């Protein structure tokens, strides 16, 4: 299977995440790790009303595909899904999903951790925190 990588405006609700897990998981896999990033109600002492994500979509998808290719090489699995949502997201909504399925759990945990950490530092996606007292594009 080729990795699933996508920037989307659609909600990453339970049904969408479940569908991605199904797509990523194959008969050879014994461990499937799913990371979901979720919008929380506070940041740096501020109460957050909602977040707004933007991306350079073509480049973001290319960088996400490069992360998936690295995972494939280092952990010997191409059962990877990386999907990031953009647009306005409310508290509690899922902004990003990273799924890695492997024969054993140790590689799946490691590879999933690597993929989300690398996404956060290299993929051209931006987050604006809209708080009760103002708004700001923030790093990390």
């Amino acid at each position, binding site marked *: 299977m080729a990795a699933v990588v996508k920037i989307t405006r659609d909600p990453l609700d339970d049904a969408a995440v479940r569908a991605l897990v199904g797509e990523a998981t194959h008969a050879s896999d014994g461990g499937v790790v799913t990371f979901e*990033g979720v919008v929380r109600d506070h940041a740096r002492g501020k109460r957050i009303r909602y977040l707004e*994500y*933007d*991306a*350079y979509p*073509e*480049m*973001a998808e*290319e960088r996400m595909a490069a992360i998936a290719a690295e995972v494939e090489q280092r952990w010997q699995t191409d059962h990877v899904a990386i999907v*990031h949502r953009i647009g306005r997201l409310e508290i509690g909504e899922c*902004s*990003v999903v990273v799924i890695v399925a492997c024969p054993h759990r140790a590689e799946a945990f490691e590879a999933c951790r690597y993929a*989300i950490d690398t*996404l*956060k*530092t*290299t*993929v*051209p*996606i*931006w*987050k*604006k925190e809209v708080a009760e007292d103002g708004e700001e*594009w*923030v*790093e*990390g």
Partner: protein
Amino acid sequence: MQVRIRYFAGLREATKIEGETLDLPDGATAADVRALLGERYPALARLLPPCAVAVNRAYVAADAPMHADDELVFIPPVGGG
């Protein structure tokens, strides 16, 4: 030569446009464009210094010469996840 520039996130809010086509001397670099845009859009001047540079969707050095029809994007510090 003409180079296409696209704006995202805070840069789009500061310019109020999605992108534009720039007429540049041959061999111009992203650093040259950064200086030009800082004058054209005062609101950009403080946003551009921390930006990385992408040409044709790949990170490059700000002093690399660009070519006709390249797509240039200044990448503010990223915040995905």
